[in-house]
């Protein structure tokens, strides 16, 4: 049984397909369990958050990135290191707000939506909302409160997928009382 295909690219592709298909099965299950898209969106965000708070440790262990000095560095690390590492894509970082506290990640293609089409009765579903939760959860663990949402989505007819990230505030570490 010798199929001389290129094993490494095959297995990388397969892994992302395994993830994509599993994600699809999850969204399908959520749509069955919840009456409306808003609930599904919320649930995806929550699940993403739970994943994010654990993923950050995995990320920090694998990359040797130190603490980011500012939000711009954070954006770069998210786009060039994290997205590349886990999803094999490198979104571009654009549309910085004048205050430097808000930016967009533009994804030319979104691996989560391979093979996916949104049916008409789910037009308000934010299919990839898990990603927002992951980013939010991960950054919270490194003391950053952020707001993350989809500004554009190829599934809903836009040309690209755009994730908008806004820095809210730095989270102070709470030391237990009496720990001076």
């Amino acid at each position, binding site marked *: 049984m010798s199929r001389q295909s290129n094993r490494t690219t095959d297995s990388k592709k397969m892994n992302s397909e395994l993830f994509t298909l599993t994600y699809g099965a*999850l969204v399908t299950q959520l749509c069955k369990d919840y009456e409306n898209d808003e609930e599904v969106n919320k649930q995806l965000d929550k*699940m993403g958050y739970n994943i994010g708070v654990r993923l950050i440790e995995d990320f920090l262990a694998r990359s040797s990135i130190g603490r980011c000095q500012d939000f711009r560095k954070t954006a770069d690390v998210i786009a060039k290191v994290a997205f590349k590492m886990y999803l094999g894509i490198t979104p571009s970082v654009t549309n910085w707000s004048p205050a430097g506290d808000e930016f967009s990640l533009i994804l030319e293609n979104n691996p989560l939506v391979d093979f996916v089409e949104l049916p008409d009765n789910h037009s308000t579903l934010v299919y990839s909302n898990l990603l927002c939760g992951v980013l939010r959860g991960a950054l919270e663990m490194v003391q950053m409160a952020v707001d993350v949402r989809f500004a554009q989505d190829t599934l809903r007819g836009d040309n690209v997928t755009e994730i908008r990230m806004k820095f809210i505030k730095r989270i102070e570490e709470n030391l237990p009382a009496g720990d001076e």
Partner: protein
Amino acid sequence: MADEAPFQFLHNEVIQYIYKSAESGETENGRNIAKLENMGFRVGQGLIERLTKDSARFKDELDIMKFVCKDFWTCVFKKQIDNLRTNHQGIYVLQDNKFRLLSQLSAGKQYLEHAPKYLAFTCGLVRGALSNLGVKSIVTAEVSIMPACKFQIMIQKM
């Protein structure tokens, strides 16, 4: 490897989700296992289509099983099945001595009662893959010492 991580994190979160709203009890547990298994089934069907779209037809049932043990397992879990046994009458036992989805759970007998949750999706995955290769089956899994586990496939004559 980093590209395995998203699936593992997602898989664990799916299990948490399926179980969180349920009260504990035999019937609930059974329903949850079935939900996970069904999710795995659909994914397995899709995955096997992608994996075999350019391959030649399989010679026989054993050929299919060997494919599952080698190529399919490698694609999904980055390793092959360690041992395949069969009674040549439709029952196959696939042994994985270091099952990827269990190795984070424990090494040994701790949390043994939770192991089935982590195996249900994969049972469905295998059943779905076989189904789209024209083989109807029932797939179950058994664990005694993690992270080793055995998947038992019973071929159903159509």
